């Protein structure tokens, strides 16, 4: 799939992954977000066979509280040559952080960049409660729109209305991810089987989202080490190529659910991401048919359907049928999704734990391994990356 070793020498790849334990919100009390971020980065460096002192770049997103100078001090990094924070609502900047890291190593700005995210929702802000967005105080809060589920539900409602999506089709997303979690010892909901009846009887959070459509609130951290293939040759192996990675900036990127709801109507019901998908497939030189597994940002189950369409795995309005026909299920489906359980059932580490799972798939070590997986898409409506073995 990828070009030969010489040609890809300067191309970015992921050489290490690291995770702390993942718990329900409040499960980690004895240490804070900085400690978790450092633990994840140290584990990722060890996984790569690197000394932590080789890390000279840091990238995160969503205003992670573990700012670079604290991280440099805590980890004892001799020289920090690159530090970036991707903009974007919530985890929308997740795969943009990977793109920043890839650009840094490909340009020579840094040699080894740690991409990380750390969250302790039991100690700080809960995403299911108040959430500040730029237009919030003037135009959203007075009307009771104060948290991500409330901000994003109207997009899903319009999508569902326009295409006649049925609840049992959306349920297929939650059920498939919970099934994947049952095989993943790190998954917070590994021992909590879900049935269609239980899904359909679950309470509404904000229509059309039911309880099981919504991601968890968690404590935990994870990290990736990004370098070039040239440098990866000296490491202990398991390098995964970053064929393309980028951030969305199409018309209306800022006026969607976390903005003013003035996104162009056709993007509003897709959640965005269609232009980004074309751009990244073009850069990677592949199409959706070449993707073996995808890890799609499941803050809310409906957005998985919307992203399946935006990233070209099926036509507009066809994702419900795609799920109902079993395409996303492991092991038999054509495109197993969120094979560690996703945000719905593994943990919500803001998209980055999905990237860690993508690397595991391409190393062949997932607990729901897709046979001969060569290409994995990481995607949400505002950023994405295409990884290859």
């Amino acid at each position, binding site marked *: 799939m990828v070009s030969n070793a010489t040609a890809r020498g300067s191309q970015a790849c992921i050489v290490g992954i690291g995770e702390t334990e993942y718990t329900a919100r409040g499960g980690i009390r004895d240490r804070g977000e900085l400690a978790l971020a450092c633990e994840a980065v140290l584990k990722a460096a060890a996984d790569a066979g690197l000394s932590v002192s080789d890390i000279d770049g840091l990238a995160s997103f969503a205003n992670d509280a573990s700012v670079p100078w604290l991280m440099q001090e805590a980890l004892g990094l001799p020289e920090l040559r690159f530090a970036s924070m991707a903009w974007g609502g919530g985890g929308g900047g997740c795969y943009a952080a990977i793109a920043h890291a890839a650009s840094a190593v490909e340009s020579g700005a840094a040699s080894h960049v740690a991409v990380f995210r750390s969250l302790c929702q039991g100690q700080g802000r809960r995403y*299911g*409660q*108040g959430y500040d967005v730029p*237009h919030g*105080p*003037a*135009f*959203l*809060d*007075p*009307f*009771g*729109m*104060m*948290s991500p*589920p*409330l901000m994003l*539900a*109207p*997009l899903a*409602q*319009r999508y569902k*209305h326009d295409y006649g999506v049925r609840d049992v089709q959306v349920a297929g997303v939650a059920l498939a991810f919970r099934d994947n979690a049952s095989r993943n010892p790190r998954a917070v909901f590994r021992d909590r089987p879900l049935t269609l009846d239980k899904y359909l009887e679950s*309470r*509404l*959070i*904000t*229509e*059309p989202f039911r309880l099981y459509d919504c991601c968890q609130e968690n404590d935990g951290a994870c990290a990736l080490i990004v370098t070039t293939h040239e440098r990866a040759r000296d490491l202990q192996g398991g390098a995964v190529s970053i064929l393309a990675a980028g951030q969305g900036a199409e018309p209306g990127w800022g006026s969607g659910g976390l903005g*003013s*709801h*003035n996104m162009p*109507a056709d993007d*509003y019901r897709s959640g965005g991401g269609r232009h980004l998908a074309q751009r990244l497939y073009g850069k990677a030189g592949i199409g959706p048919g070449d993707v073996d597994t995808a890890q799609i940002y499941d803050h809310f189950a409906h957005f998985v359907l919307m992203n399946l369409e935006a990233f070209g795995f099926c036509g507009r309005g066809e994702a419900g049928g795609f799920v109902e026909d079993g395409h996303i299920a492991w092991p038999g489906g054509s495109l197993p999704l969120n094979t560690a359980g996703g945000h719905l059932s593994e943990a919500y580490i803001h998209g980055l734990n999905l990237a860690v799972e993508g690397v595991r798939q391409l190393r062949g070590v997932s607990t729901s391994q897709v046979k001969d997986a060569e290409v994995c898409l990481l995607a949400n409506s505002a950023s994405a990356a295409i990884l290859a073995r």
Partner: protein
Amino acid sequence: MTMSRYLPTPAPLATHDAAEFWSWCRRRELRFQKCGACGRHRHPPAPFCPRCQSDRIEWVPAAGDAHLFSYTVVHHAVSAALRPYVPYNIAIVEYAALGVRLVSNVIDLAPADLRIGMKLRLVWQDGEDGTPLPLFEGGEA
């Protein structure tokens, strides 16, 4: 008739571009920005026209039909203050002739009676600090 407030939400906190929107609301007038150069309407207020980048701004009354572009019905309150008010709706209201949408509430309909595409009419209700909020009704007048 005294009407109770639809929601006990915080008063609008408006600075810069948003302040003038709310100063019109205090006069019970729903107005949007219109570009003084190319005539494009926009909401929320912004310092430049996204089409022609002009900084000439006019404030023009909301015109034409308002309809329900999308909505959610909130069942899980995000705060103790909102708990007695669920289920409540949040409406995305579109003025199609102007090409703008605003976030609001439909205050006279039960959740089951909300329909995407339904016509709405503007009503005013005082918020927490007495600022009139532009809200909507969907039932027969």
